[in-house]
Every structure is written in structure tokens, then in C-alpha cells.
């Protein structure tokens, strides 16, 4: 574990400029931006501060025992149901997220697809979709472009501008990652079918950059922490700079229970438990919530008071609503020659020809296709799936089938849109509590029919591509009824209208002027399955605005 080596410590009774709840993709960036601009910052992170030496290739520990995540086995239950008529039951967490400094950026795959111009104005271009909360963003691509470029350069991305990509003000700082066999198979299949595959943009370094080494292609990114710091998590890019500023104190093992407000209704104090259960409260001039799309709405709902009976920042009633998962589908193929997709980063080629689907199809949707190891390069997962092509799942023939399943396989994966619905949401469970006695997160989620149609569309394209690629055995599925996601989106959406959104176009609460909310919850639409670059760009943009507001004495 890393020493937090705080160059500064603040007293809880001292009023700091900012308390930031969460140190992940958004919180890490805002902490760095505000502290290097000279403001006093306390970051509260419920997990530990890990570092490269803490990570290893341990599938059993990490994938099957949730080393990087917390769930009900560790005192953090979630409940789940499809509709509000059902009683929610405890199960494996539906909303899964890392608990550590850097949050999900530590164990993500690093696929960084910018949104395009259309994503921000899609509702008005296409028209509303009945029964959904599908609306335009309050900002445009041009508003966000400078901050996408900031992500490219401050976080560290590798890539090459693709033929369908929106305009960019700067090239990528690092050249694309070398293509893997799985990428070659996708690219060649795409060519046959008249599509374009191009280098996947990733938040993983192809070469040394900003004091960090290039990727050594060890093969386990997805779900694992990087053992050499080549993955551009906020843990290695932003947090060290925040701490080095001398203005930022990072407090780990701190679980926030509520945000208090003063007589004028402004946020003035963040209450939390230290690891041993000691309750503390940090006073601050302003509060930034970047706790993720599950924890942020829960915290707002938990912070109810006489003045804010429905929870903080919730005069719209939209806190917790519009939860979006992102759709997923997969076609798996076996090839004659070794693919070895278990080496290097998950995806090296993407197809973005289907970003927006033809309206004549009769449903809304879009996304991208990339190529990967079907089981994330994981050995146990591969072997558990032995038999997927119809063979036995144990015995001599099963054993025989395993080798090609691991070394000669690759998948074409569809990453797709989800529509925002009021009925898909995060609420407080009325009976189940976590280890702190807080109401558990209750997830109510059922895909819109268009989300399912989109997944199926992408599976069908992937199957065609797999055939064009020359696979000898092919199987596919789409993720209808998906039980979980790591993309926690939409639950405190941004918008211009305080009646239908939680934060304004600068991530400032409509209700409470010194409360800022920035993480996956801010997303108005779901992205094409790769939301993190947009969350990070929003964080850089929000930080700029927060600094301006502070300079003007508004904080």
C-alpha cells in the first residue's frame, strides 16, 4: 500500500476550501486541478491507497473473491429488482465498482472513445422517444472538445484519429498500441464487409510518457490493476500531483454518511466514518461529490433534512433516476492458428461504422465493436466456459477442447447504448442495511426494448464479422437481463432545466450553489459503451468552472 505521504494535513474543525468525496476518474482529476490551483482540498476515499506493487495476476483473488471491489460478503449489500412492483432481493452487486484510490480507473480496460457531435444533440436530431427521458445534453461537443484533449494529454492516451472520429484540437500524445492477432482478424473481416477498423484509443501508454513506462503487454488490464503504472488511472496520473501540490490531503478508509447544510441551505460539512468507526466531520466552503453513479445518489438521498426532505439537490426528483448500464453482446470464434488474445491490452481495433443506427430499423441505438479475448484472458473463466460450442462440460473431450478455447479464440464485442428511464434507478432499500447501518443501495433496472434490439443488432454484426474472419466455430449471445454493470451512469443528470435535471451545465447543483456533482451520474446519455473519457472530460471542465467561481468569490 502506498503511503499517503500527505504534505499537508487539515483539522476537521478548520474550514477547508473543498471536500471531494471520491478519488476516482472524476474525483482524482478535480482534486488535482483544485489543489494545484492553490485551494485547500480534503479528499475522502472509502477504500485503501493501493499501488502497482499491490497488484498481481491473481484471477481467483480478484475476479472470484472481489479483491478490488466490495460487495455483500464484505458488509456492503445491494438489492435488486426489475420493476418497482417487485420486492428487491440481495444478490451479487448489480452496480460494481472498485473501492480504492483511483476508483474504477485502476481496473478498467482503458477504452477511451470520445462522444461525437451527434451524442449531445441526438434527441433533437432524431426526435423524442416516448416513455423515456432521452434528451439533448446542455453542452455540445465543441464545449467539451478542449477537455477531451486535456484528458488525452494529462491522463495519457495512445491512439490515432479514426475516419469517423469527431475533430480534435491535438493529436494523441502516444502512438497507437501494436495490433494483436484479434485486432488483425477484426480489421481484415471489416475490410471484407466494407467497414473500417482502426486503432483503438486507450488510456494505456504505448511508450514512456510523463514519467511512466510504456505497456509491457502482460495481458491483464480488464479488472486488474496495472503492475507497471502504464495504465493511465487517476491513481498514477492525478493523485500524485494533487498530493505534491502541498494543498491536498487524501484520507483513505473514510466512508461518508451525509452532507450537512447551514441555515442558508448551503453545504458546509461532510460527515464520515474513519475505518475504525470513529465519526468525523470536515467543514468546507464547498463540496464536490464524485462518489460514482451508485454512491453519489445514495449519499444525496441519505442527506435529507427538514429543509431538503427528499434529499440534497433533489428538488427535481431526478436524483437516482435514469440509471443506464450500457448494452453488451459478444460473438466468439475459434481460429485455425494461434491468436493468443490473452497477451497485451484487451482491444487494439475498433469498428465505429454503427455509431448511429439507421432509423428505418425501427429502434434507437448505436455503439461500437472491438475484438478481445472472449474471457478477458482469464484461465478459470475460460475453463468454466468449456463446452460453449456444444461439447461436454467435463471429461476427456472437455479437457481436449480447452486449449484451443484459450489460445485460438477471439471475440468481437458490441458495446452499445442504453436509454434513460425514470423506472431504472437507485433508491434506498427500506429494510436492508450495510455494515454502517446505512440503507443499502436498491437497484431497479430493466432494459428498454430498444436497448435489447440494439444488443441483438450488434451481436448479429459480430457474428457476420466472425464468419468473414474465417472462424471455424462460432457462438454468440447478447446481454439481455444483464445482472450487473461497472458503468454507473445518469443518476444525477446535467441539464439546463432545474425541474428535470440535478446539476447545471457546469456540474453545479441547481439547488445548492456550493455543491458540485461530477462522475458517471452526470451523464445525460449513456455513451456508446465507453463512458470514462467523457466523465474525465466533464471533470476537467467542472474544475475549470469551480476555480472561476471561487475566484469570483461565489464559493
Amino acid at each position: 500500500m502506498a503511503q499517503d505521504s500527505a504534505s499537508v494535513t487539515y483539522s476537521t474543525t478548520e474550514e477547508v476550501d473543498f471536500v471531494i468525496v471520491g478519488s476516482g476518474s472524476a474525483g482524482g482529476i478535480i482534486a488535482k486541478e483544485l489543489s494545484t490551483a492553490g485551494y485547500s482540498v480534503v479528499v475522502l476515499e472509502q477504500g485503501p491507497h493501493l499501488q502497482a506493487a499491490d497488484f498481481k495476476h491473481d484471477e481467483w483473488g480478484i475476479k472470484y473473491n472481489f479483491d478490488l471491489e466490495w460487495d455483500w460478503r464484505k458488509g456492503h449489500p445491494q438489492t435488486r429488482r426489475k420493476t418497482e412492483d417487485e420486492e428487491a432481493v440481495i444478490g451479487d452487486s448489480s452496480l460494481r465498482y472498485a473501492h480504492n484510490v483511483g476508483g474504477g480507473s485502476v481496473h478498467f480496460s482503458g477504452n477511451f472513445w470520445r462522444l461525437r457531435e451527434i451524442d449531445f444533440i441526438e434527441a433533437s436530431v432524431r426526435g423524442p422517444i416516448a416513455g423515456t427521458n432521452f434528451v439533448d445534453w446542455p453542452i455540445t461537443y465543441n464545449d467539451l472538445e478542449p477537455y477531451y484533449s486535456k484528458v488525452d494529454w494529462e491522463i495519457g492516451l495512445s491512439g490515432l484519429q479514426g475516419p469517423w472520429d469527431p475533430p480534435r484540437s491535438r493529436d494523441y500524445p502516444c502512438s497507437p498500441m501494436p495490433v494483436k492477432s484479434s485486432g488483425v482478424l477484426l480489421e481484415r473481416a471489416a475490410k471484407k464487409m466494407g467497414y473500417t477498423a482502426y486503432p483503438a484509443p486507450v488510456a494505456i501508454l504505448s511508450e514512456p510518457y510523463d514519467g511512466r513506462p510504456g505497456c509491457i503487454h502482460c495481458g491483464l488490464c480488464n479488472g486488474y490493476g496495472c503492475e507497471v503504472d502504464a495504465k493511465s488511472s487517476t491513481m498514477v496520473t492525478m493523485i500524485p500531483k494533487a498530493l505534491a501540490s502541498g494543498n491536498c490531503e487524501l484520507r483513505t478508509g473514510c466512508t461518508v454518511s451525509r452532507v450537512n447544510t447551514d441555515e442558508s441551505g448551503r453545504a458546509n460539512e461532510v460527515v464520515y466514518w474513519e475505518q475504525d468507526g470513529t465519526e468525523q466531520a470536515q467543514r468546507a466552503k464547498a463540496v464536490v461529490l464524485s462518489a460514482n453513479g451508485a454512491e453519489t445518489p445514495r449519499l444525496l438521498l441519505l442527506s435529507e433534512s427538514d429543509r431538503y426532505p427528499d434529499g440534497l439537490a433533489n428538488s427535481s426528483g431526478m436524483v437516482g433516476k435514469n440509471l443506464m448500464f450500457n448494452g453488451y453482446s459478444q460473438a466468439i470464434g475459434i481460429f485455425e492458428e494461434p491468436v493468443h488474445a490473452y497477451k497485451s491490452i484487451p482491444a487494439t481495433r475498433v469498428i465505429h461504422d454503427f455509431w448511429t443506427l439507421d432509423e428505418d430499423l425501427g429502434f434507437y441505438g448505436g455503439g461500437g465493436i472491438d475484438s478481445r479475448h472472449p474471457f478477458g484472458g482469464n484461465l478459470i473463466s475460460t475453463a468454466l466456459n468449456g463446452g460453449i460450442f456444444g461439447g461436454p462440460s467435463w471429461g476427456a473431450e472437455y479437457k481436449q477442447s480447452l486449449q484451443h478455447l484459450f489460445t485460438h479464440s477471439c471475440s468481437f464485442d458490441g458495446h452499445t447504448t442504453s436509454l434513460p428511464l425514470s423506472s431504472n434507478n437507485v433508491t434506498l432499500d427500506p429494510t436492508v442495511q450495510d455494515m454502517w447501518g446505512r440503507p443499502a443501495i436498491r437497484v431497479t433496472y430493466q432494459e428498454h426494448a430498444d436497448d435489447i434490439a440494439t444488443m441483438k443488432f450488434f451481436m448479429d454484426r459480430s457474428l457476420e464479422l466472425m464468419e468473414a474472419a474465417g472462424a471455424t466455430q462460432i457462438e454468440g449471445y447478447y446481454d439481455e437481463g444483464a445482472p450487473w454493470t461497472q458503468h454507473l451512469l445518469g443518476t444525477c443528470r446535467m441539464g439546463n432545466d432545474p425541474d428535470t435535471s440535478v446539476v447545471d451545465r457546469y456540474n453545479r447543483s441547481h439547488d445548492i450553489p456550493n455543491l458540485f456533482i461530477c462522475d458517471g451520474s452526470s451523464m445525460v446519455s449513456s455513451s456508446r459503451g465507453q463512458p470514462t473519457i467523457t466523465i474525465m472530460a466533464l471533470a476537467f471542465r467542472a474544475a475549470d468552472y469551480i476555480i472561476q467561481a471561487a475566484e469570483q468569490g461565489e464559493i
Partner: protein
Amino acid sequence: MNQKRMSRRAFLNTGGDVAKGSCIILTIPMILTACDQANEARINSGAYNILSDEEVLEYSAIAARIIPSDESPGATEAGVSYFIDTVLGDNMEAQHQILREGLRNLQSEGLVQHNAAYFHLLSEEHQDQLLKEIESTEFFNTIRFLTVAGMFSLPEYGGNKDKVGFELLGFVDQHAWQPPFGFYDADYALKGE
């Protein structure tokens, strides 16, 4: 082209639901501690923490039918029983009890059908036939899950002795790679497209 489609997820690429049908994955109470030196010594000496001698013989026999030893090592050579011992020893008395009951049921079937009190004493043919009958039970799915996990997890957890599981899958346990990674990218580099 194979037109068969799965209408919903039948397999997943991460933990969790992939082991549905097993009582283990849904009940692991905490992070398993990687084996320490004492555990290593236990494995080297052949001692088990909580499995009885009978259980070791019986679970090993089942595991050996799930991943048999043929021209390459199977569950037996991987020492999967040590992995099972490690997992069940980690605060899993309830799950252990489910397995004990499942084993008793399997044994009584063997006695009725083949007049042998212990599964490991049956012929391979009879073993396979009995396992086929219980393929969809929680007991079998749990043993299958533990066998696979023990075969392919890090040797520190007790199984995958001498990394025979890695070898079986064709996984080369090397920490860093350089292109070419596989056949097709080598070919691509040669042809330029």
C-alpha cells in the same frame, strides 16, 4: 455457419454468475488469503486442514473424471484436492456440509447400482455414469467449479501444482510480451495489411 444463438447470456467472462449452480461463489465471506508459508508446508507434507481422508479420496476421484489425466496431467496431478481444502477451510462450514451430504447421496447411489461403498472404488465407466446422473446438482456443480478453479488458479492457493493447469490451456506464464503476439499479427506485419 452455426446458426445456433443463445437468447441470453449463457456465459460470462468474469466472476460471479459464471459459477451459477455452485454453492461456493455466492457465499465466499471474504478475501481468501493467499497461502502463507505454513500452508505451503502443509501442501508439501501432504496434510489436509479440514478434509477427511475419505473426502480427499472421493473428491479427488470426482475431480479426476472432470479433468482426467491422459497424455497430459489432470486434476490429480494438479493437486486440486488441496485447493478444495483451502477454500472449504476458509470459514465455509455450511458449504462443506452441502458437499458432505452430496457425497453421501452419490455414495449410496454407487452402493445401490454397483455394490461399492466408495465412489473412488468404482470403475471409470461407472463413475462417469453416476456423475452424468447428477450433472445438474449443486453438489456436482460445486465440485466442478472447485476443480476448474483449483486447476487454473495460482499455485499459492493449493492446486495447479507445477503450473500444470497453465500448460494445459497453453498459457505461457510470462510477465511481459512483445509483438508478434500470435499468428495473425505476425502475418499482418509481413504483408503490411
